[in-house]
């Protein structure tokens, strides 16, 4: 009879943090196929997939050993997010440095730029928008309210002032501080929000 796996990821993470290397082995073996396939489905290259898979777990190991992991119970989504970010980094690097493959055949598409939002660019765009949304959540309530009304709801400062019962100058000031605080958080955490 097949033995049912009962140890949760959270338990294995705790055991690893307590020094059990075997727990890490179980975590990797449990999720390796899913993470590997996720990466491969984006890059379609075995060698690159292998590199990104390795870098993903190096980051996982370093974060765990540094005691920075705080998403107990959500191990797989956390690892998938790291893998996803590394896939984006890979495409960013390749966009900056287009390369020829040395297979011998000349491929015109490897030198023609594609200005449309292709799959990679869409991923980067989605990631940036998702990062910005998370950053906005960190803002104080009054600043967040003004920023959301202005940027996402496209309201004028007059409308914002009326709806929030403050003067236009106060609304402008809150918007200004919202942007200053966003920049501070971005600088503090070295967050990259550019496409290339």
């Amino acid at each position, binding site marked *: 009879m097949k033995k049912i796996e009962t140890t949760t990821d959270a338990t294995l993470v705790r055991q690893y943090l307590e020094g059990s290397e075997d727990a890490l082995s179980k975590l990797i073996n449990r999720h*390796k196929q899913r993470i590997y396939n996720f990466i491969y489905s984006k890059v379609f290259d*075995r060698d690159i997939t292998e590199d990104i898979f390795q870098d993903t777990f190096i980051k996982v190991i370093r974060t765990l*050993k*540094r005691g920075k992991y705080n998403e107990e119970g959500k191990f797989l989504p956390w690892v998938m997010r790291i893998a996803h970010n590394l896939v984006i980094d890979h495409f960013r690097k390749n966009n900056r440095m287009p390369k020829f493959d040395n297979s011998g055949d000349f491929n015109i598409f490897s030198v023609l730029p594609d200005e449309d939002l292709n799959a990679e660019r869409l991923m980067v765009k989605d990631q940036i928008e998702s990062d910005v949304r998370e950053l906005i959540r960190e803002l104080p309530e009054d600043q967040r309210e003004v920023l959301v009304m202005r940027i996402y709801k496209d309201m004028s400062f007059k409308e914002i002032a009326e709806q929030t019962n403050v003067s236009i100058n106060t609304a402008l000031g809150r918007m200004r501080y919202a942007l200053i605080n966003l920049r501070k958080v971005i600088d503090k955490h070295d967050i990259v929000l550019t496409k290339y």
Partner: protein
Amino acid sequence: MAKLYINQSPNEKVENLKPKEETISFLLNYSKALHVLDGKQMQYENLLN
């Protein structure tokens, strides 16, 4: 009509892939070798083989 020289869809292929044993082995050895030391204000990483 153009012939399609493919027997298996890319999605079917993707589901069967796994990382190399060497990669897993490298990661487990890396984990064993990595030690994080806490300083006063920073953490330091040490690779001990």
